[in-house]
């Protein structure tokens, strides 16, 4: 365990060293929060929710989205291409150590991003959660795990860095823009909302919105979808994983 943590420590350092991590995970959600809060603020976004409330539950997921669909697949495919995983194979440890360490890095980054968004919302804009905070945190972690499993699946399935880049762009941008993570879902026309409902991240965000506003909606459906995604994607990524 001590050895794993040492490995993780170094990977986390490397993780923080890349500039785009800061821009996408930390700056983007905070800037979006400022814009939405200043423009929309306490106006109603429908369904007994202000724009700030809506933005809180969605922007808190931007870090998850960036890590799951950018950091995780990019790092893993890069390490595979550079034969770093192969050199880890030629040691008493499994390459799984390295993958585990990097997934943990992404988890930590998502948490930092979420804490930052929450701090700005609470201190800067007086946000207060009406719903159950522990349930909200639970839903956030469930969303993170299930999105990470999609990222791991992409990393496993894509054979080359090129296909991985195409796939991550195809997944990342629609997920970021249309799941309601950045642009408020409530602003979408009805048709687009229906499409957005199919995005896995939307399930998490809808669940968190419902919990955070204390709305008595069917939570169970979203939870089932997220758990199912996690199970299926984890299974596929384990089945198709190649370290070389």
């Amino acid at each position, binding site marked *: 365990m001590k*050895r*794993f943590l*040492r*490995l993780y420590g*170094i*990977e986390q*350092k*490397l993780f923080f*060293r*890349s500039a785009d991590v800061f821009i996408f995970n930390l700056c983007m959600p905070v800037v979006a929060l400022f814009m939405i809060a200043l423009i929309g603020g306490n106006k109603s976004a429908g369904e007994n929710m202000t724009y700030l409330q809506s933005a809180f539950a969605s922007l808190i997921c931007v870090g998850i989205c960036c890590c799951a669909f950018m950091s995780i697949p990019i790092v893993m495919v*890069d*390490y595979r291409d*550079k*034969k*770093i995983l*192969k*050199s*880890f*194979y*030629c*040691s*008493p*440890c499994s390459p799984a*150590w390295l993958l585990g360490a990097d997934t943990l890095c992404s988890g930590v980054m998502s948490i930092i991003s979420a804490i930052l968004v929450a701090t700005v919302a609470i201190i800067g804009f007086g946000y207060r959660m009406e719903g159950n905070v522990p349930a909200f945190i639970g839903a956030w972690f469930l969303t993170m795990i299930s999105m990470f499993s999609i990222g791991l699946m992409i990393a496993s399935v894509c054979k080359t860095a090129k296909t991985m880049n195409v796939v991550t762009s195809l997944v990342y941008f629609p997920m970021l823009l249309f799941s309601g993570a950045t642009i408020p879902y409530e602003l979408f026309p009805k048709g687009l909302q229906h499409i957005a409902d199919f995005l896995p991240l939307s399930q998490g965000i809808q669940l968190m919105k419902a919990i955070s506003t204390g709305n008595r909606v069917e939570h169970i459906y979203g939870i089932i979808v997220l758990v199912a995604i996690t199970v299926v994607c984890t299974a596929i990524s384990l089945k198709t994983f190649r370290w*070389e």
Partner: protein
Amino acid sequence: MSETCLEIRGLTKCYSGRRVVDDVSFSVEKGAVFGLLGHNGAGKSTTIEMILGLKKPEKGTALVFGKEVAKHKKESFEKIGVQLQSSFYQEAIRVEEVCKERTALYQNPGDYKELLQQFGLSQLEKSPVNKLSGGERQRLSVALALIGNPEIVFLDELTTGLDVAARREVWRTLKELKDSGMTIFLTTHYMEEAEKLCDRITLLKNGKILTEGTVDEVVARSPYDNLEEAYLWYMDEEVEL
């Protein structure tokens, strides 16, 4: 009594019907420097990869310290150091960070600071790995292969692509390593490297062993008096100058 570190019997590997390694057998004694020589694509790397359990042979066995590496991975790699052909590192990682990472992988690692000292890399500890010169980078990869305190090291084409000076730097490093009694398995296509370092060599062409022995024995069995000419003669590719 000499002790066998590595024992290979009838190792064979096919890629889409083509035999890239064909019935290869040899053994390496403890403390010896063994050189596997051949052109690019002769099957050198595939042989190493089968020994290390990275690839599964169609036929034959490879035993390191009497055990198949793939079946005793954890235990074997505590005793085996590996430098793979063209090693790459994480983006923006520094020398000391690579060393610390590798140190974390072993039960009884050596002191990486001592190794860096030994390989003349101490002053580069804080440098990003991708800023190192070719020679420095290869010396680093040898140092990394030694971090776990191995009993045998596999070095795959360590000096390919290096300029003459850098190659000699690496050779000096290996010479010191050899003098310290380390068992070394290396692949190369530089004959000078084999002459300078290897106790025994094996020539590989199209996956088949052409000849083996000490450098002197191999040269003596050819009509020439140096390894480079002899090598080309064995490879059936003599070129008149």
